[in-house]
Each structure stands twice: as C-alpha cells, then as structure tokens.
C-alpha cells in the first residue's frame, strides 16, 4: 500500500460497499424477484392447504391409486390424471414429427426469402388463444375427423391402442382432444427447435455437403445431434403445455371420470376439465379433493416444464 501523502494526486479509493441508491435499487430488484417466487410457493401452499382435508381424512393412499374419480366417497386421481396424460401423449406424438418437419422446412428447405415470413407466421400462430382452438375443435374438427376416426377404428382396430369398446361412438374422445392440443403445441415445439437448429454450426453443415453428403445426411449427422438437447427441451415444454391445457379439453371431451384404454371412444377424464366444470359447484370436501387433484397436475407440469428448460439451457451452454 502506497502512502497517500507521498504522491501529488489523491488516489481513487475503491470501495467495495454500495452507495445508498444502489442498495435501494438492489432491494427493489430482489423484492420483485421474491414476489415471483412467493407467488409460486403460495400457489403450492394454498392448493395443499385446500387439499389437506382430502389427503388426511377421506382416503390417503387410495387417492393416488384409485382409478375412478367418484365424488364424494372414493375419488381416485388416476381416473382423471390418466386422461390428462393420454391427451398430452397423443398430442406430443402427433405434434413432434410435424413440428420438427416445419422447423427443418423453414431452416433448410424453404427459399431463403420466405424464411423470415414463415418464422414469424409460426410464432404468430403460437399466440392464438386456446379457447379459439377449443371452439374450433368442438365445431369443426369433431366433425371433420369422424370419417378418418371411424375408418381407423374399423380397419386398424386390431392394433391394441385403436381398439374400442363402443363401436360407432367416436366423437368427444381423448384422441380428438389430443389432436386439437397437438395443433396448439405445434408452434411452441417448432419455434423452440427451429431456434436451436439455426444455431447448429454452419461450417459443419457445409463440411458435410463438401464431403458429398446429402442434405438429409447433414440433418441427421450434424443438425439433429447438435440440437438434440434443444429438441428434448422443446418437447418437454410442449408436454407441459399439453398437460395443463384446459379450455380445448373442457369444450370437447365428454364427461367421464374413469380410466379407459379405448382412446378413440368416450372415456377418461381430465383434471383441468374436472376442476373447471365442477369446482365452484362442489361442496367443501369436493373442493378439497379437486384442489389436491390440481396440485397433482401442477406438480406433474412443473416437472416437465422445469426439466424442459434445464435440458434446453444445457444445449445453449454447449454452443
């Protein structure tokens, strides 16, 4: 340390401590961050508080293992959780290949001039409200897909998942809900995976071409391996969106509350639908059961959305 007296100019004293306004600013920032955190915690807390009765008094383990949602005596959450999960699975099965196609089409196949427009269009379609999709599904898709679904049930019925219990009754099914939700999440999945694929190193793609590779070869050997994490992340995000989707399912799905293996026919409930339809008219115990079901759904979607973000972020770190 030099003695300050021995030099002409007073050296700048670097202080580690913050100035007053900075402290206020930091507190302000931290407060707003904390608000977000508190909201999440209180959602969980209030659902748990409301669902406490159902967890302790009525059923305990049966709540999580029962396959029929029959209020008020023995509701089993599987009766409506399985429907939610099935819808999400059908949606992602249909949406993923199509979303990847559109992402690859925009990035690799479409004319360069069209790319910006197509990207904007896909992002734009992602903001269409779910009630509009639900309304369309109820009025249009439910009618359009009757012929194909009937055909699948009649001719492909030998495949276990297409087996039905009620021949001739194919509307308002989990399958149709899955299709609507698939159309809703296509822009989400496509947008995330397109962005990641665009970050694939261009020189490696060009090198693949230079070695005489085909375009498909460059996709499978360069672009897809590079963007694998991003695609997985986008898929998990899509699943979490599909799991929590409410309005389209409320409008289209028939009223059912037990597990059914026939996805083409009516059967299977949905947690979000059950809450939307019956929560305000339930008694206090019914509400408690629904709140616990809601907590189950929320926990499930949290796992998927958080997992999706973590995986997607890892891919950005790699690049």
């Amino acid at each position, binding site marked *: 340390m030099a003695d300050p007296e021995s030099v002409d100019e007073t050296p700048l004293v670097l202080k580690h401590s913050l100035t007053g306004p*900075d402290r*206020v*600013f930091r507190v302000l*920032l931290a407060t*707003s*961050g*904390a*608000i*977000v*955190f508190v*909201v*999440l915690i209180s*959602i969980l807390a*209030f*659902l748990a508080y*409301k669902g406490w009765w159902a967890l302790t008094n009525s059923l305990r383990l049966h709540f999580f293992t029962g396959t029929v949602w029959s209020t008020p005596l023995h509701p089993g959450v599987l009766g409506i959780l399985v429907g939610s999960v099935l819808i999400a699975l059908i949606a992602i099965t249909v949406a993923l290949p*199509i*979303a990847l*196609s*559109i992402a690859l*089409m925009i990035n*690799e*196949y479409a004319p360069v001039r069209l790319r910006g427009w197509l990207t904007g269009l896909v992002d*734009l*379609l992602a*903001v*269409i*409200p*779910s*009630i*509009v999709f639900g*309304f*369309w599904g109820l009025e249009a898709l439910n009618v359009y897909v009757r*012929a*194909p679904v009937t*055909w699948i049930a009649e001719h492909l019925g030998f495949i276990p998942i297409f087996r039905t219990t009620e021949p001739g009754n194919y509307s308002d099914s989990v399958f149709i809900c899955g299709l609507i939700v698939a*159309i809703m999440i*296509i822009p989400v999945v496509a947008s995330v995976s397109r962005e990641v694929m*665009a970050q694939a190193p261009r020189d490696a793609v060009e090198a693949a*071409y230079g070695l005489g590779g*085909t*375009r498909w070869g460059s*996709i499978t050997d360069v672009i897809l391996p590079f963007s694998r994490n991003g695609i997985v992340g986008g898929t998990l*995000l899509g699943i979490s969106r599909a*799991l*929590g989707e*409410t*309005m389209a399912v409320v409008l289209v799905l028939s009223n059912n509350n037990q597990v059914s293996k026939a996805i083409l026919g009516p059967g299977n409930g949905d947690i*979000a639908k059950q*809450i*939307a339809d019956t*929560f*305000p008219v339930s008694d206090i115990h019914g509400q408690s059961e629904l*709140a616990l079901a809601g907590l189950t*759904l*929320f926990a499930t979607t*949290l796992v998927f959305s958080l997992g*999706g*973000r*973590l995986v997607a972020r890892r891919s950005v770190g790699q690049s």
Partner: protein
Amino acid sequence: MVEILADRESVSPLQPDRPNRKRPVSRDGVIDLVGAAVASLAAVWLVLSLAGVKFGFGYVFCWAVVSYALYGVLVWRRDGVLIMKERLATVSIWTGGVIALVALLGVVAYVVAKGFPEVYDSFPQFLVNDTTGGKSGVAFGVGPAIVGTLEQVGIAALISIPIAFLTATYIVESRSTLARLVQNTVDAMTGTPSIIAGLFIYILWVYPHGVNGRSGFVAAITLSVMMIPVTCRAALEVIRVVPGSLREAALAIGAPQWRVALRIVLPTARAGLITAAILGVARTAGETAEVLFTAGGGPHYNWNPFHGEQDDLPLRIYEQVFQPSAKAISVGWGAAFVLMTLVLTLFILARLLGRGGSRRSFSLWGFITSWRRSPPVSE
C-alpha cells in the same frame, strides 16, 4: 451500434458467400413423384374397388402410403439407398410442414369465415351492444366483454410489466443464489396450467369473499400470475444479449449500478422489451380458464373493474358455446373473431416495434424516446 451487431447475427451466415446448395427440385424428381402418385392411385383404386370398399378416407390414406413407398422403391432401384433416403426425407419434411401450416391457418380461416360475417352484418352494434339482445331480443353485441378484456388485461399489464422487467434485470444483473432460484421459478411458472392459476386466486380471494369476491380486478390479478413469467422470460432473452462491454464501460467510468441498469441496459434492449411486453399481453389476453372462476361474466356492462362481476371476451366465448340456439353460437364466433383479431394485432405490433427498433435505430420510436436518453458519459 449495438443494434447493428445484433442484427447481423440474426441473419443466416449462409447468405454472404452463397454456398453451393443442392438443387431442391429437379425435373427427374418431379417426374418420379408424379409418376409414383399416379401409378399408386391407379393401383389402390383397382384393388379397393375390387374389394368393394367405399370411396372415402381409406382411399386417400392408402394412396398416400402406397405412393410414398412406390416413390421410394423407384428412386432406390435407380439411384441407390442414399438418394432414396434424401428424397423420401424431402417429401416427408415438406408434407409435415405443409400439413402443419394448413392446419393452423385452417383454424384462423375457419374463425374468420364464421366470425367475420357476424361482426360485419351488424358492424358497429356488435362491438357496442351488450349481450342481452336488447329490446328486440336480436341485437346481440359483445361490448361488455370488450370493455372487460381491455380493463382486465390493461390492469394486469400495469401490474406485471414492471415486476417482470425488474425480475428479469435481477436475474441477469445479480449472481446470487436467490437470483438463480428466481430464474428457475420463472421457468417453472411459464408452464403453470391456467386453470391452476384461476384455482389459486379462487381459493385465496373469491371463496373467502363469497358473492362479492369476483371482479375485473381479481381477474386481472389472476392474469398477472400468467403474464409475469411469460413477459419475464421474453425480457430475459433480450436483456441477456446486451453486450457486457457496454455495462463494463459504464461501470468503469463510475456509474452506479442502478444507473447502469436503468440508463444503459434497459434502453439498449428497449425494442426487445417492448416486444416482450406486448407478447405477454397477447398471450394472456386469450386466457379463459384463469378468468372462469374470477371475473364472473354476465351480459351487462360493468365499467368498474373493482366492483361487481365483469365480462370478458374469452369468458363470453365460453358462455356462448354452451347455449342451445344457433344465434348464440354465432355470436360466440363473432366474439372469437374479435378476440383473435385483437391478439394477432398485438402480436404484429410487437414484431413491427421490435424490428423498427433494431434495424433503424433512429426511427420514429427512437426519435420519440431519444429525449429521455442522455449520453451516459455526461453524468
């Protein structure tokens, strides 16, 4: 300066040196494809007619599968496996992409076809009248719902946007454990099922307050639960790309942290922040499940968001859907058209403002905002 750099990055690096791209469509390829399609159509028609299957979905399905296979075999025999894979992949990707666009645009077109005539036929009245049908019983409108949506989304935006921006700044500027926790929280909450947010506010506020619990303001709070994380995530992305050199330069000449954040970082990212804010608004304006338990609805005008039940557009659509008459359903389509127009307009506005700010930094918007930005050095 910053804007120019950011912009150059977003342009595909392919453009400047125009690499040798394989021609996507060759004449042989088209002939192969058309030939395979025609041949398989004939084959499928013959077989299915002989088998006595009625024309319908099955024909189209079998035709698509058979022509795909036939095309593959054709290319494989002539050009080998590698080219076959390439061609089949091209066909698949175009098919998938076009199916997706057709399906999504089909939804938009359907809503326009159903809803636009409803709005157009009784043009100003549809946007002004309430939903009781008036004295004549036929003059339906969605005026109360439009008022409700504007007020609720407006209040939600006033609450959410400052919190979202401050939270995003916090996550980027702070390195603390809490900041990382908050980032994970935001990530987790973007996936919150909207019904859960509605349920939360219902349990927290509406249920304890009974009949008077529902109002436009409560609905706005519920929308904020969704709007904060969505806006915050989008804001994060743009605040992150503000170059660290700008931040360090300001800090190096002695600017305090709050000034760096408010005068350097946020103004640099302003175009992106405007986009983030409008996107958050557009995403939440259509949320239905959240307002289902909290807004109350009802066909009458209620201008006061703080007292009494209030209608809004998503809720109006939801209520119209379950009414038995065809007229009620088509009023629902009209409402859907108005809602979709509102949301898409907001989205396009967000894009235009975002682009205007980054490409032409001295555009009208830059001119309007420039009086507030004094050069940091002069402080």
